[in-house]
């Protein structure tokens, strides 16, 4: 009986490990996909280019503070039409958020799932700049840290 308990325990542990690994995704693959499909414009450290390309570093996590912002990150054309499948897009966005903007993530942030990404990218944004502006306006009413970040010219997104 104790032997059986041990076996059950180790199976459970292995299952848990598998679940946590699949949620984390493949970081190396995500990084390579970032280099190939994002970094050309968002630049190697996700710093963006003032007035041309939005900064993700130290910023993109703010979007996870609202449902609308969360949807936007997948529906923005650069994400929705990126030449990667749904699984890799979910993995890539989760990696970007964790790597470049962990401090700005909403409390209790749940990583994107493949099903969620698959559904969202079916309806890409038609006017991303306007929608982005609206989302940030709405979010900054409740988020002082975001308001400060938006007010600093040197770090304007």
């Amino acid at each position, binding site marked *: 009986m104790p032997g059986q308990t041990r076996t059950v325990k180790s199976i459970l542990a292995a299952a848990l490990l598998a679940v946590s690994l699949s949620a984390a995704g493949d970081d*190396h*693959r995500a*990084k*390579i996909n970032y*280099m*190939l*499909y994002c*970094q*050309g*414009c968002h*630049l*190697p450290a996700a710093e963006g*280019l003032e007035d*041309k*390309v939005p900064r993700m570093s130290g910023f993109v996590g703010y979007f996870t503070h609202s449902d609308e912002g969360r949807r936007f990150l997948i529906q923005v054309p650069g994400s929705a039409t990126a*030449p990667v499948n749904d699984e890799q897009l979910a993995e890539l966005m989760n990696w970007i958020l964790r790597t470049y903007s962990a401090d700005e993530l909403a409390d209790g942030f749940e990583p994107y799932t493949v099903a969620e990404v698959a559904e969202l990218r079916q309806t890409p944004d038609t006017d991303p700049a306007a929608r982005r502006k609206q989302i940030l306006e709405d979010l900054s009413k409740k988020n002082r840290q975001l308001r400060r970040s938006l007010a600093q010219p040197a770090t304007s997104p």
Partner: protein
Amino acid sequence: MNWLIKQLDRMTESKTRTVAQSTGRRSFMGRLAMTLTGVSALPLLPVARAQQQPGETGDPNSCDYWRYCAIDGFLCGCCGGSMNTCPPGTEMSPMTWLGTCQNPADGKNYIISYNDCCGKTSCGACLCNRNEADRPVYRPQAANDINWCIGTKHLTYNCSTAIVVGTALEQ
């Protein structure tokens, strides 16, 4: 026992004196400083540091060189720069497009960043237009027909670099 300790004491003293007489802290500091200066000057020597990395073969100024598989432009190596650097008087565009090329030396695919050099009129030397994996301009992030002088002071295109930024995934 006392005798042994005295012997040891004497021996240590004489050795220490010998070392102290034949060397000096100043000479040690001098030699250390010289070594440090030498080591720090090494990267400044005019070696081909902007040229090939280990594991690369071929002529970097020839269009059939492996890194140029998706390029469309003038090779910076023929324009006063190199495949990694811009010619003097030009500025490297921070925004660019990236693709992958297979290095025949090891059969691996590498990620290549084709940053344009901007700020002087077209170089005109070593035009290279290979277009492997090039996509139409409506997929701009993989299109080489675009003038990528974006975010630079001047928008005039001069030449293109081909910088290895990583190893691609094995498909």
